């Protein structure tokens, strides 16, 4: 994962990520078109495939709407690095296979516009602009199983042995 960073503050909530006025659809392209609209109306015009969101504490707080991580993923963002995530957003991201990393140090120091590279194998976020490396804690084994299966439904299918 390699891309340019877009920085947001604390408590970015699901009404900012995808306002409820767009929840009358589950079309991922339509959701992507309004990604982060209440936080930055021009976001989708600026963002490119592979870019990353850097945020403060409690990213994704509020509603349980899975449309929020879906909109971010479908807008082409490769990952989110935050100081902390709200819990329903966290599990939704794991369940749909949107990479998220809890790393307060990186979230603090990475600047808007910096280029970062994330390596899952080494557990490192590298700020290529700042030339600085940040370690993140790997997920617990059980969550890694879900991630490795490619999301919760694939994991369930495997367990239930559905073809």
């Amino acid at each position, binding site marked *: 994962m390699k891309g340019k960073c877009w920085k947001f503050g604390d408590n970015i909530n699901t009404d900012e990520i995808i306002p409820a006025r767009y929840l009358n659809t589950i079309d991922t392209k339509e959701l992507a078109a309004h990604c982060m609209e209440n936080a930055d109306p021009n976001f989708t015009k600026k963002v490119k495939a592979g870019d990353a969101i850097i945020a403060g504490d409690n990213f994704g*707080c509020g509603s349980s709407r899975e449309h929020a991580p879906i909109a971010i993923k479908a807008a082409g963002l490769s990952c989110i690095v935050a100081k902390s995530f709200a819990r329903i957003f966290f599990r939704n991201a794991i369940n749909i296979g949107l990479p998220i990393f809890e790393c307060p140090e990186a979230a603090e120091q990475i600047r808007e516009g910096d280029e970062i590279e994330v390596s899952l194998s080494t557990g490192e976020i590298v700020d290529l602009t700042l030339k600085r490396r940040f370690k993140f804690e790997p997920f617990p084994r059980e969550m890694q199983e879900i991630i490795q299966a490619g999301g919760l439904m694939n994991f369930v299918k495997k367990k239930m042995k559905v073809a």
Partner: protein
Amino acid sequence: MGMTITEKIIAAHSGLKEVSPGQFVYANVDICLGNDITAPIAIEEFEKAGIKNVFDPEKIVLVPDHFTPNKDIKSAQQSKSLRIFAEKHRLKHYFEIGRMGIEHALLPEKGIVAPGDLVIGADSHTCTYGALGAFSTGVGSTDLAACFATGKVWLKVPESIKFVFHGKVKNWTSGKDLILYTIGKIGVDGALYKAMEFTGSAISQLPMDDRFAMCNMAIEAGAKSGIIAPDKNTEEYIKGRVTKKYVMYHSDPKCNYAKTYEFNADEISPQIALPSLPENTKPVDEVSGIKIDQVVIGSCTNGRISDLRIAAQLLKGKKAHPSIRLIIIPATQDIYKQALQEGLIETFIDAEAVVSTPTCGPCLGGHMGVLAEGERALSTTNRNFVGRMGHPRSEIYLCSPAVAAASAIMGKITPPGGTVKN
């Protein structure tokens, strides 16, 4: 060391004698829930996975309540997908409009959730049922799809935070004020990933409707769940509603809490949360006089019968201020009917309020009261995020039904003092 009520319920549903915070479990679910916004994704995921049957048609609840009665063609399509799924899998608990209510008011009312249950819902306010002594938490649509298939959910056992409310709740202060006060003290991530356990003499005396309002907003402090140990009030409420067997769990006298907060309920006056986070709370007295355009009384937080009674008590013989649009939404059909029989609806209409069929509608800026640019709402709902009720440059203040009704009359934020509450 003993276990908390939350740990006991999770252990019992995971086939374990005991669990401790941080432990990863696959828990058996008694009830799983979805609505017209979240269930369509769950249904699509379930069908895409090629799974034929749901785990138990009696344990899945679908309530189209957010954009219903369908506000546009797209919403109608979403509701339709719920109806088709419910018919196909012969779901026992599908609630069509006219028979429904806002999900978190409806499920307790219909006796679908019992003390000791483990409930998940693809709606963040699923934590409401903690008021019945159940472990209940919000999840996403894919979690719901997985639960349709397996009847299980993955969980990390949360640490618990204990909130002790000493003393007695005073005049005009409600469960809503206690929870707004709490969120103001600990912040919107003050209980992140934790279970909030509410206890103390003020909670023991608190009516069920107020307990639902408190547990409902646990999520606004980032919590996984909110819970109140079941007692006589709980038993009285579920009598005639819950027909299945249930277990009343209680925390052991000695168990681990990540933190304990002690508050004196006597010192908590009616609260208000200023834009644009529920943690921006202040006593109403300190912000009285702020002009408002719209007042909403309703939602899964405060659309219950006692909420409507308090509002009617204040509005009786009065009119909403000419500059105010007053919207009142009974949370379920039964509450609506009860309010009608008690003459509350007549009071509201005489006060020049709009009374609507049950819907989440305005709370999330869906329909039935969307705000224009620069408008300010005072609402008994649960979130005041930027753009939540409409235009990104509109504002929301959160409060109890008493504050909302008193303010609707004056056209500006007004404490409900003066008269004595019945």
